[in-house]
């Protein structure tokens, strides 16, 4: 009986292959270190209770996708992980978000320190109106690196890491605004890599991109997960299924379900998850 249900669900997501399906079952048994351990985390925008009792344990060197309908709090959650959400003045939080064992919500945790370890790629490509080189060198420079040779090396390494070196190596001094939207987004990823982060947060990084650029960014995410832990918010379920190892489904500010991506998409435990991934709402 259970098998039968699995089959029907699998048919609905038949054209979606998840990485763990490709690699096989063996990856599941590996328990990696925890990067972000969220415990009973609540967040309010003024009177609006935007995140309710979030409990999530995000592991290193995995791609964790956060999916859910608009307004479910997925962007708010990812922005809480590097405390970017504090830029909104009326935000109040309680609970714990432990990054590598230390609670980032403690007053003594400097956001600048956190954000050099936890980089972020935004929804809309947001390069600075500077040259490509200066864009990438921005992060290292604010952290005090002045040596031109070191900067040159960081720029090349970061651009290679973001798979855009070959496209821009001859025009590093040109304004980043001259690039296409997809290239700009990869420049932003390279800029994020330049601060040598531990975790990369991606807030719907492909929502403003065309399908080909989207594919390139998705491939890039796959390559990056060997060296970084990636948390990606997406409204595109196929994307989550394609690139993530684990998926968290958010609804109305709560985590409905958090599990391996293939389980979420084949045998969701919660009816709401099943309704959402099969396109019945959202």
């Amino acid at each position: 009986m259970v098998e039968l249900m699995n089959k029907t669900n699998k048919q609905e997501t038949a054209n979606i292959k998840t990485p763990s399906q490709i690699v096989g079952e063996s990856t599941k048994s590996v328990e990696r270190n925890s990067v972000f351990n969220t415990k009973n985390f609540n967040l309010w925008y003024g009177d609006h209770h935007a995140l309710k009792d979030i409990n999530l344990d995000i592991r290193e060197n995995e791609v964790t996708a956060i999916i859910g309908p608009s307004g479910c709090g997925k962007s708010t959650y990812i922005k809480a992980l590097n405390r970017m959400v504090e830029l909104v003045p009326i935000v109040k939080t309680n609970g714990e978000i432990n990054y590598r064992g230390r609670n980032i919500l403690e007053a003594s945790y400097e956001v600048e320190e956190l954000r050099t370890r936890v980089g972020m790629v935004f929804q809309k490509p947001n390069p600075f109106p500077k040259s490509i080189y200066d864009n990438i060198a921005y992060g290292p420079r604010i952290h005090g690196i002045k040596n031109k040779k070191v900067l040159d090396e960081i720029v090349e390494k970061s651009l290679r890491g973001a798979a855009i070196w070959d496209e821009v190596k001859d025009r590093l001094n040109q304004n980043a605004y001259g690039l296409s939207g997809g290239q700009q987004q990869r420049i932003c990823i390279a800029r994020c890599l330049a601060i040598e982060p531990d975790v990369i947060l991606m807030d719907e990084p492909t929502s403003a991109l065309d399908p080909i650029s989207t594919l390139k960014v998705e491939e890039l995410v796959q390559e990056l997960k060997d060296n970084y832990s990636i948390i990606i918010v997406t409204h595109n379920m196929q994307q989550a299924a394609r690139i993530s190892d684990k998926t968290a489904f958010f609804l109305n500010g709560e985590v409905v379900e958090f599990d391996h991506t293939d389980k979420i998409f084949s045998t969701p435990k919660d009816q709401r998850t099943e309704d959402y991934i099969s396109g019945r709402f959202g």
Partner: protein
Amino acid sequence: MKYIDDTVVMKRMKSRLKYNSIWKMIFLIATTLALLTLVILLVRIVTQGSGYLNWDFFNNFGSRFPEKAGIKAALIGSVLLMLIIAPVSMILGVGTAIYLEEYAKKNKFTSFIQMNISNLAGVPSIVFGLLGLTIFVRMLVLGKSLLAAGFTMSLLILPVIIVASQEAIRAVPKEQREASYGMGATKWQTITRVVLPAAIPGILTGSILALSRAVGETAPLVVLGIPVILQFLPDGLLSQFTTLPLQIYDWAKRPQEAFQYVASAGIIVLMILLVIMNSIAIFIRNKFQKRY
């Protein structure tokens, strides 16, 4: 069933088009009237004043005789005044704008301050003159000096500079700041490396326009008791001085007809100065403006 009846549409078409062209005419007349007034004014001033524009006019001090009257003290006084106003008003104005936009919490108190700054921009300049007279001339005993006048004029244009700078800072997209904060930059690094470079064109344009208003201003200086005519150049910050608008005002109210022409010559000089300043503002805006 159709809601839009073709015959009615066609019947109304003519009157709609007529109204369209009538309004166009009204706007055209408004523009022409303004331009015409400007042209008449310019022609009158240039024809009256150009005869007096020569080297002696720039090199002479004021005089009882129109042919000997010159603008030297006033021109130098105006330039020196500008050199005091520019740094004082820009440092205070841009600093205030940065604080209000980037640091201050958005609460009732800051919005109250905000409202007052906007209102101050509309306060008549003579009121600032009275303020300057009380505080700088009398309380701080600076006398009728360059410094007292410079501070007064800085206060006068400060609200304009603050509002213009705030708008320039606010126009820097939120995403740019987020990108910088997202890499662990401090507020100060974000302001100096991202916000200000993008906002500088707007800040400078607003500041230069405000400065040119200060250069053309007379009323506060009259209240401060700045002399309208001087036979020497200022030799320090606490020295007496005069300015172009004051000098022109003095010439224009003299009974001899020839002084009207001298006044026109002075107006030409003042206008050239203002046109140069406004051109610089436009140049900066066009050259450094960044689009996102």
